[in-house]
């Protein structure tokens, strides 16, 4: 028994070293990754010249991102900077260039789409079927990975151009 004690201690130590960092750092929450996608959506969207130097990114509804979204505050998107807003009133959405419809039912989406008709705005959601309803980019979780579908017609109607790269990565592009 005394001979095996050092080996036992060595193995336990190895296991601790191996597992402890994993337990501490194995952390990729859904909405951290979705926040990164939101940033990329803004990055791969071409905005009209009359959009100013600030891109207002607005979350409408109950914010699922939490502090992850605050990490996007002030980030550069080409020559512009992101400004983050949490919005609870549909009327206030008219000042936004990117709108994420959070936690909404299909009913909520249709009201937002109706209020933003003709506005220069990239509308994003993560609600099943939202792209078919007219949301430009709609995220889903498939096998623990984020995928997204694009509605090209909706983006064009909202005066924004989605890059060919973004469209090539979408699981489905609605024309």
């Amino acid at each position: 028994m005394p001979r095996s004690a050092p080996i036992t201690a060595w193995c336990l130590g190895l296991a601790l070293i191996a597992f402890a960092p994993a337990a501490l750092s194995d952390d990729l929450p859904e909405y951290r990754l979705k926040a990164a996608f939101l940033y990329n959506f803004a990055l791969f969207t071409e905005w009209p010249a009359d959009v100013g130097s600030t891109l207002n990114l607005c979350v409408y509804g109950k914010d699922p991102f939490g502090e992850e979204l605050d990490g996007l505050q002030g980030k550069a998107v080409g020559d512009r900077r992101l400004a983050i807003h949490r919005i609870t009133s549909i009327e206030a959405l008219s000042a936004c260039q990117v709108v994420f419809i959070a936690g909404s039912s299909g009913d909520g989406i249709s009201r937002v789409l109706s209020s933003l008709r003709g506005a220069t705005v990239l509308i994003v959601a993560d609600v099943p079927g939202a792209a078919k309803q007219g949301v430009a980019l709609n995220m889903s979780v498939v096998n623990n990975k984020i995928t997204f579908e694009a509605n090209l017609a909706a983006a064009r109607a909202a005066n924004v151009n989605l890059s060919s790269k973004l469209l090539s990565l979408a699981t489905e592009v609605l024309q």
Partner: protein
Amino acid sequence: MSAQAVTTRSQRKLLLAGALALLLAIPDTANSFTLNELLDLPIEQLLRLEITSRQPSQLAVLWAAEHRDAT
């Protein structure tokens, strides 16, 4: 069975367990990113990442219900 043989077998098991623990830990550590790290990754790589926790969809349901009631 001698005491020496038992010790050797248990040592082997422990060594195997330690090596297995190390191997299992490697992919986990590779799946951890801060938001700033994620923003530096190409979107193609973001598509390959696996999330480790999902937001309860109940939040969405509750918000939608509250919002409908308010209107």
